[in-house]
């Protein structure tokens, strides 16, 4: 790649939506990347190409199209495995997204392994998809759900984890690699090593980390790892659950149906090998194939370059936002400890109103609880504004956001 800022500027041309004009012919500034990212032509075209040229159901047929689609589909599994440094691509299971992946674990692993009185530990900054499945499970099993609280800096209070682990009742510790609201990057190594010492399983919700930083699953040492393709240039409807082969092999199946079976008889059935045991029914073939192109695109830029680019944007944005009177920033002040996600509130103006007003200037941020109401309760707010960055964002766009926020003050006569 050529030298950084230019190179990143250059890749904007691959994203057709970035040419969009919105509202009164305003240039789109897309800062809602933590919700979903935009897609490059490479991904969009791969999906069209599949439908135009070799669309077919996979795995079972012997005809030409089926062979081509099966190969492209399975090739994606290998690409995902390499991207995460996973040796055995049979450990890669395609799901709809992070939410389905976590629920799969809660049903297929949780129902067999969590008993009355057991503890599942999560954190205060989790997305609803890493809370609700465990509420459902612990309620069903009369087990307990415990939270690691966050401190004023938005960081996890790990001594609470020690307390929980010391009870000997913890079966699973589950946490997000990066908070989708505060941007806080969790101390993965420390958590995993504590859990491993206690013989406790670990699930990492990587929805916000895998798109933005290098991840090496061979080193992390967790047991389950889940993320969504649509938050990393990929199509909607594809996500990944990774787990160790030994764990997956012992797990009961989740959804029953085609492809996940070896032999079906009237009253008993045997399960297929990994990963198929957990991929019942026709998968989202086109989008899995498109997802491969998203990973290739990210790898070409380099995950470390992406992390640096976002860090630069985040530093710049934090500096500029600090200058705005009445603006409250959430999360740690140290940019190195966070990803490219900035949550803020502006005077007493409700985030919904901020969102609507700056949207008129073409700026797309998210305003709401970000599916993190437990965290909102902790921060003692109903909602926040959130600007989140990705590879195609620029400092100039941050300037537009800043100007738009000034405008909010005018509308509300602050």
């Amino acid at each position, binding site marked *: 790649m050529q030298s950084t800022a230019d190179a990143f500027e250059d890749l904007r041309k691959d994203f057709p939506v970035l040419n969009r004009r919105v509202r009164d012919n305003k240039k789109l500034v897309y800062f809602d990347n933590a919700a979903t990212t935009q897609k490059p032509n490479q991904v969009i075209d791969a999906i069209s190409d599949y439908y135009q040229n070799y669309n077919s159901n996979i795995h079972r047929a012997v005809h030409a199209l089926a062979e081509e689609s099966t190969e492209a589909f399975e090739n994606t599994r290998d690409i995902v495995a390499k991207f995460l440094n996973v040796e055995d691509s049979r450990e890669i299971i395609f799901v709809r997204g992070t939410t389905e992946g976590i629920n799969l674990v809660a049903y297929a692993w949780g129902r067999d392994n969590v008993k009355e009185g057991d503890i599942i530990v999560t954190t205060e900054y989790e997305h609803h998809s890493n809370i609700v499945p465990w509420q459902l499970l612990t309620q069903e099993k009369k087990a307990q759900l415990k939270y690691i609280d966050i401190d004023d800096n938005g960081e996890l209070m790990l001594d609470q984890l020690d307390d929980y682990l010391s009870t000997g009742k913890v079966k699973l510790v589950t946490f997000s690699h990066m908070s989708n609201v505060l941007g806080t990057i969790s101390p993965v190594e420390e958590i995993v090593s504590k859990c491993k010492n206690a013989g406790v399983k670990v699930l990492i919700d990587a929805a916000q980390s895998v798109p933005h930083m290098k991840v090496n699953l061979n080193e992390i040492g967790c047991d389950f790892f889940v993320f969504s393709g649509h938050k990393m240039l990929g199509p909607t409807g594809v996500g990944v659950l990774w787990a160790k082969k030994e764990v997956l092999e012992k797990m009961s199946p989740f959804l029953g149906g085609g492809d996940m079976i070896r032999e079906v008889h009237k009253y008993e059935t045997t399960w297929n090998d990994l990963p198929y045991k957990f991929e019942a029914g026709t998968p989202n073939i086109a989008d899995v194939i498109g997802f491969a192109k998203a990973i290739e695109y990210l790898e070409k830029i380099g995950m470390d370059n992406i992390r640096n680019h976002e860090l630069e944007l985040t530093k710049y944005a934090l500096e500029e936002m600090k200058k705005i009177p009445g603006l409250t920033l959430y999360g740690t002040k140290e940019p190195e400890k966070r990803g490219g996600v900035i949550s803020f509130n502006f005077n007493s*103006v*409700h*985030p*919904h*109103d901020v969102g*609507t*007003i700056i949207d008129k200037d073409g700026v797309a941020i998210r*305003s*709401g*609880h970000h599916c993190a*109401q437990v965290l*909102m309760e902790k921060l003692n707010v*109903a*909602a926040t504004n959130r600007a989140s960055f990705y590879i195609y964002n620029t400092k100039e766009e941050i300037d537009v956001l800043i100007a738009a926020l000034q*405008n909010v003050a*005018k*509308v*509300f*006569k602050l």
Partner: protein
Amino acid sequence: MSGDPIYTEMIIEYSRNPSNFGKIADAHIHQHDANPLCGDTIDLYLNIEDNKISEVKFDGHGCAICMACCSVLTEMIKGKNLDDVKKFDKDELLSELGLQHLVKTSPVRIKCALLSLKSLKFGIYSYFVDKMKDSESAGNLNEEAANLY
């Protein structure tokens, strides 16, 4: 920014100084509702005397639109006959604030505007079931509330 189709003087003013803001202890009707999209919650309190809304208050967090609509709604129904209140519809509320256009232009913000009305309908629904034993009116209210947005 004069001429902003949403953030009129009136709405900004209501969002700063909502009317009928507060709680009623032991209210005859207490309805809690939330907008699952943004986390806003409101609590609506009503007292009924002689089939009239004798007292009404609301409490909660919400955006300017939500606060203004709650304010205006509570103002409009205070003292009104239950039979009139039960027929109250969204156009009446929206037009009072010049927000009819939201129905078409903003499927998301319309939910902020109508949360108050939804709570009202669900709130008096239970009252029609329990106190008035009027299951027809109650059924209608329930349907209306569910179909509001």
